[in-house]
């Protein structure tokens, strides 16, 4: 079976700085793949290129046999590759429910004019959006906060809201940007369960960028490690834990650190 998403020799240069250098890896359908690496390794840049929020300098991203790099972000979202943001990127003055309803707009069957005149299809859409939002919020355990204004939510709920907005678009691949950042152990474990259930019950392939090593090791099927813009390793959590290059990248080489 061919991979769902392929990253092929993707390079990003900002002037003289190479943020990503010829990165290649495949993402299989229904897996949870984490991209890790020290600060400045180029993880976020890579994510932006996959979701087409920034163009690649060279190389390409292939999704279901189709090139999706260097397109407009909304077109990539329409194809089913959707990214989430860190918690400050939300619809501040919408309620949780409203945000999830708006995010379903790709599922609309009626035209914008149809909505203006209140056509039958548009009314059906509106009812369906509301129902699906209810269902999704129930699934994500956000039912109790559905009528809260987004700007009033605590950090953990904002993270969940970001995922809810992403999921509402009915993605095939969901790119999560640091979903566990700033969470305590219990919150992280809840989020790990949530992400896993997203994959298991909604058939969504999940890619995530994350710093929290225990969570990454717990949740990932496979891990890609970046350092200084280069891919230095790829494999299962146990392979990565025992990979010398990875240990070196994170801890520094034995020689440097202790001077032996």
């Amino acid at each position: 079976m061919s991979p769902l998403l392929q990253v092929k020799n993707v390079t990003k240069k900002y002037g003289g700085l190479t943020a990503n250098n010829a990165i290649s890896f495949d993402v299989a359908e229904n897996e949870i793949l984490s991209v890790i690496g020290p600060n400045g390794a180029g993880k976020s840049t890579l994510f932006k290129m996959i979701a087409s929020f920034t163009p690649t300098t060279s190389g390409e991203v292939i999704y279901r046999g189709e090139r999706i790099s260097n397109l407009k972000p909304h077109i990539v979202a329409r194809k089913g590759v959707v990214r989430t943001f860190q918690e400050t990127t939300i619809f501040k003055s919408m309620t949780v429910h409203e945000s999830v309803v708006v995010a379903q707009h790709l599922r609309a069957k009626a035209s914008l004019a149809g909505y203006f005149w209140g056509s039958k299809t548009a009314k059906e859409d509106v009812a369906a959006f509301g129902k699906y939002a209810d269902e999704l919020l129930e699934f994500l355990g956000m039912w109790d906060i559905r009528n809260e204004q987004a700007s009033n939510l605590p950090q953990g709920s904002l993270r969940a809201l970001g995922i809810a907005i992403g999921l509402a678009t009915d993605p095939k691949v969901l790119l999560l940007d640091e979903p566990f950042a700033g969470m305590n152990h219990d919150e992280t474990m809840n989020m790990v369960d949530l992400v896993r259930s997203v994959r298991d019950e909604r058939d969504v392939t999940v890619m995530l960028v994350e710093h929290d090593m225990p969570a990454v090791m717990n949740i990932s099927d496979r891990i890609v490690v970046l350092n200084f813009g280069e891919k230095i390793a790829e494999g299962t959590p146990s392979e990565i834990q025992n990979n010398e290059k990875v240990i070196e990248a994170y801890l520094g080489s034995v020689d440097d650190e202790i001077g032996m």
Partner: protein
Amino acid sequence: MLGFNLKQLTGVGIFLFMIFIGVPFAIGVTGRWDFYFTLTSVALLAIASAGVWLTFYIGRINIGQGAFALIGAYVSAILVVKVGWSFWISLPAAGLFAAVVAILIGLPILRLRGVYFAMITLVLTQVVTLTALALPITNGARGISNIPLPSGISLFGIPILPDFVAMESTKLAFYYTACIIMLLTYAALYRLVNSRLGHLCRSMQQNEELASSIGVNISYIRIVIFAISSFFGGLGGAMFGSIAQSVYPSSFQVADSVNFMLNCFLGGLGYVFGPMLGTLVLYFGWDLLFEFGKYQMLIYSTILIIIIRFLPNGLLSIRFSKGGDK
């Protein structure tokens, strides 16, 4: 179809009664016939302000509505005087022309945000004024005067719209026409804001990146909204030209563009009917302060500052601040 509840319906009913029966009655009793012109102007400026409000709704500060009002006024005048069209056909044509110009101008400038977009739009009015001075078809500084009053329209021999020339009181006719167009504009605006397009606009206003991540074609919607906004501007401007029976390059100036924006601020950016109220208060307020002579501007601007200081969300926020519906 608009989906009002009973309370809103009553409000709309009272409002309709006021403008169509209350105002003419009050003017008849007091004999202040000049108020017809003032209120007609308010209605027309409110149409153009509605457009500005709509661009605010996608998070863009538009200080260029005067440009589109001027374009609308010229297009209508040229079509009526030089081509011989009926005013009633030139009216939507003027709006459409303004919308097309908005699309052409919007394609490059709508990428800009915040103050950069605002500055470019601020220049637009001046650009259109200078263009009108330079082009032969607009007759330069002399403008186009002696525009005939709107003629009647009949379909299969049945009169739909009366001939304004044959009327005793064109003031009243213009007042009613302006009110009806204003009502249609705001009905459309209300509907738009409460439909999916409106929700997408809100999502863009709050976060364009997130909006595009959920698949909203933000550049397309920006263009559509700017075109609709300018359509309203063109419509208001065309009607204005017809009432004044003349158009000059100075008919709409930068100050008018700023006023359109102020109308929106004053009424409230969060409320569809904000610009309508804002226009009424600003325009009527200015007129009422006329008696203060040289202090008119001073008092006027002081009041404005106070209102904006204490009611940053606009006049309509008084009504809604006690909770309830939003």
